[in-house]
């Protein structure tokens, strides 16, 4: 009897995550989709004007979509090479003695709260860029600042996933390559890294998810101007930023449009998640 009850309890607990996903979808879509319809899908997704409080309000989130894409792309350009190379270092170059401390350091990198990153970006990266690129009209808070900061923030994800993918490649690949006369580097970059390709890619996709969903750190360094940017020295507003910046005072349709912004973000994330799980299926060692 007790067995039966507890079996039920365990099964019920297991259903909570399904329940949670369904609830999240229902509540977001039920509040967001009608707002999209009211504004008009094309006007909402393709409109470049964001004037939520004007007498003739405009709710175009195109600048924010572009903002999120630019900032994420920047983070990938900066974070991926450094992250993958660091993973190579951790897997093939790192002296045994310092491996443990360095591994803990990457875990620490993952554990630092995003506000702390954001604050660091605000007091270090932003003034630095402002001074360096003053001639280009850079005010500091810019796509570039957010890209650098996010590039740093996604490092632990990329390093962790890539390293385990690299380690999962059979030793014989490396040995075979060196036996044929390849140097250490050639063996790694010509045979091991290509073999770990889908795992590394999974790490990159996970990093993209982190970058596009990051909120607080980005708000603090990206300027939050809702307009299509002209250069990487301009400030932009991301989808995540749009939600947090406006939610404090939004009412009525404006508020629902913000939830619709969340829906767009959610759909982006779902696409990213699905690509990640497809890749993961191809390389079960990743992630």
């Amino acid at each position, binding site marked *: 009897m*007790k*067995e039966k009850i507890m*079996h039920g309890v*365990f099964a019920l*607990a*297991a259903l*909570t*995550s*399904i329940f949670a996903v369904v*609830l*999240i979808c229902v*509540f977001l879509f039920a*509040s967001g989709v009608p707002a999209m319809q009211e504004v008009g899908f094309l006007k909402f997704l393709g409109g470049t004007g964001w004037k939520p409080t004007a007498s003739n309000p405009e709710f175009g989130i195109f600048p924010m979509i572009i903002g999120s894409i630019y900032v994420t792309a920047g983070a990938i350009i900066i974070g991926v*090479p450094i992250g993958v*190379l*660091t993973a*190579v*270092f*951790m897997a*093939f*170059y790192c002296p045994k003695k310092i491996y443990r401390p*360095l591994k803990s350091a*990457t*875990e*620490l*990198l993952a*554990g*630092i*709260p*995003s*506000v*702390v990153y*954001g*604050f*660091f970006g*605000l*007091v270090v990266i932003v003034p630095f860029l402002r001074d360096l690129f003053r001639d280009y009209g850079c005010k500091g808070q810019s796509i570039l600042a957010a890209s650098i900061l996010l590039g740093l923030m996604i490092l632990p994800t990329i*390093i962790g996933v890539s390293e385990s993918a690299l380690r999962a490649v059979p030793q014989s690949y490396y040995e075979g390559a060196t036996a044929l*006369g390849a*140097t*250490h*580097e050639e063996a*790694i970059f010509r045979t091991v890294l290509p073999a770990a390709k889908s795992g590394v890619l999974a790490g990159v996709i996970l990093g993209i998810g982190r970058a596009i*969903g990051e*909120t*607080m750190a980005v708000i*603090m360094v990206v300027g939050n101007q809702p307009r299509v940017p002209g250069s990487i020295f301009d400030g932009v507003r991301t989808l*995540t930023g749009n*939600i947090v910046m406006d*939610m404090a005072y939004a009412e009525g349709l404006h508020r629902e449009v*913000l*939830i619709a912004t969340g829906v767009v*973000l*959610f759909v982006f*994330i*779902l696409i*990213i*998640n699905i690509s*990640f*799980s497809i890749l993961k299926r191809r390389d079960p060692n990743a992630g």
Partner: protein
Amino acid sequence: MQAEIKSNRKRPLSVILKILVIAAACVTFAALIFLIVYILINGIPYLKPSLFALEYNSENVSMFPAIINTLQMTVLALIIAVPLGVFTAVYLVEYAKKGSKLVEVIRMTAETLSGIPSIVYGLFGMLFFVQRLHMGLSLISGALTVAIMILPLVIRTTEEALISVPQMYREASFGLGAGRLRTVFRAVLPSAVPGILAGVILAIGRIVGETAALIYTAGTVAEIAVGKDFLLDSTRTLAVHMYILSSEGFHTGEAYATGVVLLIMVFAINALSNIAAKKIGVNK
């Protein structure tokens, strides 16, 4: 010996690649060290006793209420998420038939949950707990929201811990006549405790560092939640406190100091998690 063979065959490209690899690692770790040292150097001088005053006011901008609220939020979220997460993992590993459709769906949803950004959790918490369930901006709305957020982490780490418990333990327990339930609670779970603990500690880290999911669910009131309705009080955790200080811009020094406290918490959490993880190795 290996090194000798290689050095004879050095080619320019290999040398460049090696330099790049080492340079990348240096950039990664230098950035981390710079960030930590910078915050510590600028923040420690501001750690004055008044920052830890019992009451917050705009004069002393005390972070003490925020620290207490962070603790309350963490404990509450863990009370909700840990049993759910552990039970889910027990079901997946010990009860469910291998390859069942349900298990696949549960895994998929848990994976989906772990990819959802915290701001989306915040929106959901605001729509569901704050508005639909009329909990208002409160400790309990925030705790429920972050509980869902950490659920996948608890499930995954517990699953891994359970899987790594040797099959022998279960067989021995069954052999002695124990039922499945007794086997789970007496033989399997106790030896999986360090692994579960490592996951729970990581989850604590996420709660402590969370901001976006809390601003519109738990609110920003810098007062310790007390009294019989403390669950319905609006609270401000330390990370939210730091965000508010730095976005207001009047208290940069105090924001640094809050950053120091947050960093110290993160150090402690990571160290504890490492200790717990090492325990797993000992058990094996």
